[in-house]
């Protein structure tokens, strides 16, 4: 994603005389940003995400700067006459991959979500959760510049939920924008760059809460080269960074982003030495967050 996706005064209604579901929505999604959309049931969150994903055209207003987009629906049907690997290969080519790399990545992503055993099972026979894994894999297959997740975590098992959080962290670290809706307030807690709320048919930035919920954390201790500064890619997802002894840093990182931080440290030039990775030893509430 090289430029911003911008929604300007966007409105949407179904039917010529239907009531406005959304109106006057302004939203800018910058590369590498994670955006959370909140709102009660039926307020138009899904409508907003469909507009952001480009599935629906706004009734009024403009959307500019469309990047390569992928979308995960809340419920994915298994009524498709394919096997997961066949469907994902088709979708990979639709996303612009060659057939060969689409098939290879389909296998990789099914493996990551623990669905490799079902790669050749007809989709009609899949459970709801496994179908949802196929939907998630479909979206992540081609490294989209904009990833839109409409309650994509619903129906996934605990391991797949954590894997999807890590996949989101990877996507934003690679410069992609991610927008998501989820009813669990702990989902990627503390990580989003922006939180918006759909209220009365329009979008408002959520005002800072007194105590934002904090998700699971990981403490990474790393030592750098003499006089070295922490790589920006490692500090950006970190909740806090302390320097207990000169040259050694303690980074407190959302658990979903520990892989991204480690990768940034180990691939820095010159590389950093990771001393330890451990769960936090102080209650997360006492961490001060920016």
């Amino acid at each position, binding site marked *: 994603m090289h430029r911003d996706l911008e929604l300007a005064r966007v409105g949407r209604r179904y039917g010529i005389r239907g009531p406005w579901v959304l109106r006057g929505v302004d939203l800018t999604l910058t590369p590498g940003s994670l955006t959370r959309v909140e709102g009660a049931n039926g307020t138009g969150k899904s409508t907003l995400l469909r507009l952001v994903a480009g599935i629906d055209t706004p009734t009024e207003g403009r959307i500019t700067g469309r990047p390569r987009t992928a979308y995960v629906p809340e419920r994915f049907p298994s009524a498709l006459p394919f096997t997961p690997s066949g469907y994902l290969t*088709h979708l990979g080519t639709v996303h612009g991959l060659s057939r060969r790399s689409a098939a290879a990545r389909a296998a990789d992503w099914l493996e990551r979500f623990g669905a490799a055993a079902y790669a050749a099972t007809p989709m009609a026979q899949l459970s709801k959760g496994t179908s949802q894994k196929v939907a998630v894999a479909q979206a992540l297959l081609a490294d989209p510049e904009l990833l839109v997740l409409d309650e994509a975590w619903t129906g996934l098992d605990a391991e797949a939920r954590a894997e999807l959080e890590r996949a989101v962290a990877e996507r934003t670290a690679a410069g992609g924008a991610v927008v998501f809706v989820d009813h669990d307030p702990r989902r990627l807690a503390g990580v989003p760059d922006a939180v918006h709320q759909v209220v009365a048919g329009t979008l408002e930035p959520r005002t800072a809460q007194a105590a934002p919920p904090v998700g699971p954390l990981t403490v990474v201790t790393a030592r750098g080269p003499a006089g070295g500064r922490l790589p920006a890619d490692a500090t950006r997802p970190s909740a806090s960074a302390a320097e207990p002894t000169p040259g050694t840093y303690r980074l407190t990182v959302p658990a979903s982003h520990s892989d991204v931080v480690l990768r940034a440290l180990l691939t820095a030039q010159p590389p950093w030495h990771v001393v330890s990775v451990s769960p936090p030893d102080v209650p997360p509430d006492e961490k001060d967050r920016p």
Partner: protein
Amino acid sequence: MTALLRYQTALLLRSQRWLPPVILYAVFLGVGVQSGQPVLDSLGYAAAALLPVAAWLVRICVTGEPPAARACVAAARGPARAHLAALLTALFAAALLGTAATLVVTVISRHATNDHRLPVPPLRAGAAGLLAILACALLGSAVGALTNRPLLRSPGRAVPAMLLAALLSMVVAGSPAHAAVSGLVTGSESGRIPVSPLPAAAAALLTAAAFALASALSGRRSP
């Protein structure tokens, strides 16, 4: 677009929803075409019967994909292109079916006029039949595109509207399908083989407009 067409084709073939219209068309031909009948007359019948079948194939292609799967494809490629791929897949399927029917009818029919006096060369008859088949496949697809999602979304309206429109576009004078089929039928009387590409060209224009409208609306009138 190639990837989208391949995906839509796989969806159509693997869903097996193409079977009913294809069987219906085979029954149409089995009833109306017998070996030894005048070739141009039979080709006209085959072309006319293809029009509602083409419209039905469009309905299958634009409604067959579950909405959530359609949304995934629309996000990747845009709703207009995704819809156009479904329409083109149906058109190709109808054209393929019509071509096969033309071949069979041309081979098994008597190569003469209705009164058996004048000979009708099979190659020219086949070419005329292909043009008429193409006109009917195109116009049928246009009818299907205009009477299904996204223009008419409830089956209660879409199906009767589609059948009525298919019938009208066959019988109303001035419609390219009517021109193409009546050209074959009168040719079978007179022995003059109609090889004018005009009806097919007119049908192609109408179909392009119908496809463009339906594709442009698919993002506005969903889900």
